[in-house]
């Protein structure tokens, strides 16, 4: 069971890699912000799987932290791309 969960975590990491490859080929700012969101979800999936294996339940605290800060990083990116592109009001 432990090695199954770790291999599953590895497979999730490969899927995250595929997503990142596509994102960093994109040229738009919006593409780039999706990378942070993808890492948020992918990172949480990997950490949950590791929490189930020998790494132990403390990995879930890292998962909750990542969940919180993936949103924060996206907000920071949106604010900076807003000011980068001029002061249009937010719809």
């Amino acid at each position: 069971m432990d090695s199954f969960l770790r291999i599953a975590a590895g497979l999730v990491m490969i899927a995250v890699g595929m997503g990142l490859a596509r994102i960093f080929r994109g040229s738009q700012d919006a593409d780039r912000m999706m990378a942070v969101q993808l890492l948020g979800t992918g990172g949480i999936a990997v950490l949950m799987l590791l929490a189930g294996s020998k790494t132990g339940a403390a990995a879930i605290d890292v998962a909750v932290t990542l969940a919180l800060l993936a949103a924060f990083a996206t907000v920071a990116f949106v604010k900076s791309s807003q000011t980068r592109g001029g002061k249009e009001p937010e719809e």
Partner: protein
Amino acid sequence: MSDVVLHGGLILLILSLAVMTVVTRDTFAAITAFVVYGMLLGLAWVALGSIDVALTEAALGSGITGALLLRAAVCLRDKEAAAEVRRPGRAAHRVSGLVCAAIAAGLAAMVLMLPDPAPSLAPAVMESLPATQVKNPVTGVLLAFRAWDTFLETVVLVLALVAVWGMTPDALWGGRPGELRQHAHDGPLVFLARVLPPVGVMLGIYLFWIGADEPGGKFQGGTILAAMWMLTLLAGLTDAPPVSRRWLRAAMVAGPATFLLAGLSGVVFASGLFAYPPGFAKPVILLIEAASTVSIGVTLCLLAIGPPSRPANR
């Protein structure tokens, strides 16, 4: 054996994002790569068996470091073309590439020739950990065995903030950092900034509290509190306080001051400076950590926002 897929994939992603961070010309893309690189490092630290460091790296790397770099990137965005003039020529690129490759190869060789059996202080730490009544060995090292270094480290944070504030133009001294607060009209941004901070503050306090016995601690809790405060500032729900506010400076200094008082009281009640009275080690440690969590959160957020840039009444 089952780790090969995860660790290998993690390392490949980390290296490719590091290459992107360093090589790409567009600053915005480089910072995105760096934030994602910070999150991946958090996972790498879990793979290396340290949840404490993973929490710190994840909370800081993807949190306020991204906000700090983005704030700077926005201010410097029209200067990218001008800076290109100063880019060193092709020959200089090749030479520095060779030099860095040589350094990396030397370090890699050193890693492969590390002594076996590996020297370790873990037995020594575990042997004298019970005296500190703290079950998390990293917190034991930070707060008990190396209390002096950790105290000076929290002072370094305050010094960095003083230095950042020192660059304020005289006219704006005592003003508010950060740009003018726009009226927060409701959209997904304000909705996020209204719902996440309570959860974040609870998580920050939780991480500080369990830091004594499980992975966590004041640095991890403080970084999350800083990120949550900054989220409300970004969304315009709150405004940055003028730097001359008394409570702000008290909050900044609370951590190091408590640490110093506890250390000095060691001379009176215990065997020496930064020695904790036997039997009272845990309450004292938790008191220091509580004050430090608050002051680390406040200091890191103010460091990310920057020096005062507008008068106090705006």
